[in-house]
């Protein structure tokens, strides 16, 4: 398979995953920001949305203040923001067009359809119910793309590369949500138990679509350390670090088997997974939640670079 094709597939899936993550972040932020002031505290939720999306620099170069309108405009529709939902779909579609023959018709139609629809919407200022519907639609595109990939693709290297892109992006998104909100999960904050924290915790779960899963797994009220456990170590939770790395290792091993060769990417992924498997959430807190998350983000980036070096260059 051409390296460029693999690269396009890898980024195509990353961009679709990123668009979906942005939609969930915006939804959770919108919900949190709309709580009555009594539950609100001092934090500006829109600021942390910008931080979570990892585009603070570009955002503040353009907007003085983070509020509903400026953040929605920048994260969803701004052409100057390379990671806006609009640009994610635009780039995904461009990549898809370059590798069309490697995609199934269902995947192509999902992306092409989304791109056509988005061009129709892009210049309209969406607000209120329209915005909610739009964010729901973006998530739906992610689901449809994911679903058509799972249901229609051959299980070969094409599939592996697109999954690897998606999983790296997913792990990164979960990690960045935790990175921005980690202080809310620390015990000294948690015991305050004020109204605000409770809704903040809910918002974290919501941003990774895990409100219901949490209750199924722990069968108790929302506790900050259990949220950390769920999103970092629980491999039943599809967006957790552990689950992403379980899958990453599996797909990288498949590639290595198909190509008859192991490399740095396989080794990095395996050692990262081993660390997650052997960790206990109490140790994580003891050694420092923030450091743990920062290290993970760096490892995840290293794995992305190794995959690039080994296969995509």
């Amino acid at each position, binding site marked *: 398979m*051409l390296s*460029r094709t*693999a690269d396009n597939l890898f980024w195509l899936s990353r961009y679709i995953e990123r668009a979906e993550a942005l939609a969930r972040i915006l939804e959770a932020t919108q919900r949190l920001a709309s709580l009555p002031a009594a539950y609100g505290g001092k934090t500006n939720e829109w600021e942390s949305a910008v931080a979570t999306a990892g585009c603070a620099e570009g955002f503040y170069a353009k907007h003085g203040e983070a509020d509903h309108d400026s953040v929605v405009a920048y994260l969803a529709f701004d052409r100057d923001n390379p990671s806006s939902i609009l640009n994610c779909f635009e780039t995904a579609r*461009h990549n898809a067009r*370059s590798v069309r*023959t490697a995609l199934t018709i269902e995947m*192509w139609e999902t992306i092409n359809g989304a791109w056509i629809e988005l061009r129709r919407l892009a210049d309209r200022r969406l607000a209120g119910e329209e915005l909610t519907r739009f964010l729901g639609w973006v998530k739906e595109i992610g689901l449809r793309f994911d679903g058509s990939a799972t249901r229609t693709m051959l299980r070969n290297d094409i599939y592996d590369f697109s999954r690897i892109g998606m999983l790296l992006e997913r792990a990164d998104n979960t990690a960045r949500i935790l990175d921005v909100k980690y202080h809310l999960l620390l015990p000294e904050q948690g015991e305050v138990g004020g109204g605000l924290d409770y809704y903040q915790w809910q918002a974290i779960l919501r941003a990774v679509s895990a409100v219901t899963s949490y209750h199924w797994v722990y069968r108790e009220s929302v506790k900050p350390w259990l949220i950390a456990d769920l999103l970092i170590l629980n491999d039943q939770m599809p967006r957790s670090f552990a689950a992403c790395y379980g899958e990453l290792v599996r797909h990288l091993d498949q*590639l290595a088997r198909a*190509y008859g*060769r192991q490399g740095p990417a396989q080794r990095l992924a395996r050692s990262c997974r081993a660390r997650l498997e052997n960790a206990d959430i109490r140790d994580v807190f003891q050694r420092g939640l923030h450091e743990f998350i920062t290290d993970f983000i760096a490892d995840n980036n290293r794995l992305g670079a190794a995959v690039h070096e080994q296969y995509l260059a």
Partner: protein
Amino acid sequence: MPSPAFDEMTLSDGSVRPAYRKLAEWLAAAPPDLLQYRVKEAELLFRRIGITFAVYGDQQAQERLIPFDIIPRIITADEWATLTKGLVQRVEALNRYISDVYGKREILKAGIVPEDLVFRNEAFRPEMAGKTPPHDLWVHIAGIDVVRVDADTFYVLEDNARTPSGVSYMLENREVMIRLFPELFSQHRVAPVERYADELLATLRSLAPRTSSAEPVVVLLTPGVYNSAYYEHSFLADKLGIELVEGRDLFVRDEVVYMRTTEGPQRVDVIYRRIDDEFLDPLVFRPDSALGVPGLMSAYHAGNVTLTNAIGTGVADDKAIYSYMPEIIRFYLGSEPILKNVPTYRCREPEALSYVLDHLDELVVKEVHGSGGYGMLVGPHASKEQIELFRAKLKASPAGFIAQPTLALSTCPTYVASGVSPRHVDLRPFVLTGSNGVRIVPGGLTRVAMREGSLVVNSSQGGGTKDTWVLDE
């Protein structure tokens, strides 16, 4: 104006030609909203498949659909048999001519084609002089544009010997028609075209250099997604099951071409390139080309890779050489051309020029190197200003132009806003030449000028396409 054009369905006395009888009955019986409904369905299908093309210089409509006409064009088995013979003859002559021009130059020595038409031709590649591509075949994929003027007469309008496009429309038009009009297919024995991809692959593989392995690796080289024919490139690569590569996916080491794959470098034997000569290798041709592969020519000259079509075939397909095709056929094959040439005034010749200048309002004037319907004057349809503009151009550089009488291109029934109405058509069949023979799939791309009375069928000028049915009996 020429007399009313020959209509392929309905003769001037109102009778329907036999091949079209069932179609005419069906059209007469079809309720108007049925046709309209099928048109909408067809557009939806094309939009979904994503068949689009880019129009150069049109920023707004980056991706447009070529209008598709749902009424098929029908060619009888007999007509097709004649066409086939003529096409095979024509492409064989083209191959012999190019081989000669870069080799012994016998046709020049014999004084049949003037030397300056060859050596001053922009498409002439001195790099190929004295060189022989694998199997001494040059034009492996040709698109020969044919028009019809009456029941018996076909003319060749243009030879496309570089990188002819349009075959994806031939294939997709058929797919859409089969989905939309199963009832019509059950009433006609239409020769299938779907074999084209297999035939093309067999042709390409037969062209592999002798140094390649038993299983030659074939790729399709595209300029990339922004090229107007990108859809076709990806479509063909998919149908052939070969990699669609860009220049940056290939590299040359020790005069062998490799592609970069996820499993390391892989040798490439045959490159079906959809990039013009001058962009192929920045070390030899345009140094600013980012589309090509540095060193490709060295591998080509070493005989380690086949390029289809070969480099330098443009020397055979410009409009000035076109006028010599009958002589070229006679010279190499010793036989009379089966398909006629449109009588052509070479404006480089003073007598011809003065005739052309006196009859601009009757003639079609074309740039020798133009294509895609750009830079063309259709005298009978042109305004005074357009005619004067061309008069000035002609006087300034007569050798850059040829002129032809305005042919009454045949018409076919076409579905337009006002209903079913005749529109002018042409036909581009595709001729494949491999080391193991010539292959022509029964059919081709019928282009139709959607505007009433227009003779310009090019998609860049608002032309549409039709499915072309060659009847099997």
